[in-house]
């Protein structure tokens, strides 16, 4: 089989977990285990020789690309600036705050049907929501609303640009 090295290289590259020789054989069909093993060892040597940013290692019964040990600090730096993702809970709480503002926590709890303390706190820390006042009812509970940062993150000029539910429904026909 021509190109066997490149094929194996691409398979190991896309695999989530260490790729075993058996698995590779299953995919390639009639190729001897020895031929596969040889191709892999060839590749391992190539990567070593190139002083590349990552190398091919034998691990947990299979083969995997891993970044070089001595570059760990740089990778850590990259992972540290990984963008924040929203959990579904945070997104739902934020949606209620955005569409119902100014709104008290009890109302968000009621609409979402759960205690939103945790996700609300997260939104306040991320400066997507904030306290905007107190409602003039007994106990004077805190009112919440969105921030300028919220508009920036969602790419909105102002709150009136928020899509309405009717607009969403129109897409569902």
């Amino acid at each position, binding site marked *: 089989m021509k190109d066997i090295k490149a094929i194996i290289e*691409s398979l190991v*590259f*896309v*695999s*989530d*977990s260490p790729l075993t020789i058996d698995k590779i054989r299953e995919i390639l069909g009639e190729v001897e285990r020895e031929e596969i093993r040889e191709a892999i060892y060839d590749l391992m040597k190539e990567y070593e020789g190139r002083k590349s940013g990552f190398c091919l290692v034998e691990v947990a019964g299979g083969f995997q*690309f*891993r970044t070089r040990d001595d570059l760990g600090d740089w*990778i*850590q730096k990259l*992972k*540290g*600036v*990984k*963008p*924040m*993702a*929203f959990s*579904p809970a945070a*997104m*739902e709480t*934020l*949606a*209620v705050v*955005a*569409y119902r*503002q*100014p709104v008290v926590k009890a109302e968000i709890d009621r*609409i*979402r*049907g759960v205690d939103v303390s945790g996700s609300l706190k997260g939104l306040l820390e991320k400066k997507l929501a*904030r*306290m*905007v*006042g*107190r*409602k*003039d009812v007994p106990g*004077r509970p805190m*009112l919440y*609303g*969105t*921030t*300028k940062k919220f508009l920036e*993150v*969602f*790419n*909105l000029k*102002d*709150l*009136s*640009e*928020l*899509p*309405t*539910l*009717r*607009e*969403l429904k129109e897409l569902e026909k």
Partner: protein
Amino acid sequence: MGYEVKLDIFEGPLDLLLYLIKKNEINIYDIPIAFITEQYLGHLEIMKSLNLDLAGEYLLLASTLIHIKSKMLLPVQESEEEDEIDPREELVRQLLEYQTFKETALNLDKRSLLERDVFKGGYSPDEELDQGEKPFVEVSVFELVEAFRKIVSTVEEELLEINAEKMSLADRINEIMERLAEEKDITFTDLLGRGTNRRVVIYTFLAILEMMKLRMIRAYQADSFGVIRIFLAVET
């Protein structure tokens, strides 16, 4: 008849019309409208007899075709020959535009698509949590409104609409809060600003009233005609 099986693969009335034009080797710039109308209606009949769901758009184009046909039957008035507009012109323009996008769609599909033709690495290092200011992943308002729709799907309809006026008020309240966070106190006239339009003045005024009612801000005046100063009331 080879074409029955093809009926459900048309992407719409324009697609069907283009297919008929190509199949009959017709010059798109000079469509024999009577002939093509007959062909088109014939296809609609087949679609109906097969109980295919005939979208309203197919019928709309049928009536457009019939309309053009009747117009073409009218005798051309010699006196107006200068500016005589071909009744087919608009339709042809639309067909050409659609054809362009249909081709473009095919070309897009020929590219090396991620997760279809090419793949990225499967490397997934352990998730490490790190503190500090981080940018957000690209997130669209669609996800926000979709999240809202999911949770309120059980709530009554009237609760679902957003009210433009209420939102404008919330916007103005947010702006004032933003300024107060930076400047500690602002005078009433500062907030109204100079040369702003009536709408802004009204919403600013309403916002201040609302904020005072909600005890978000406090207003002080040194003497009865003095400057009104506004402060944040909430301990943030």
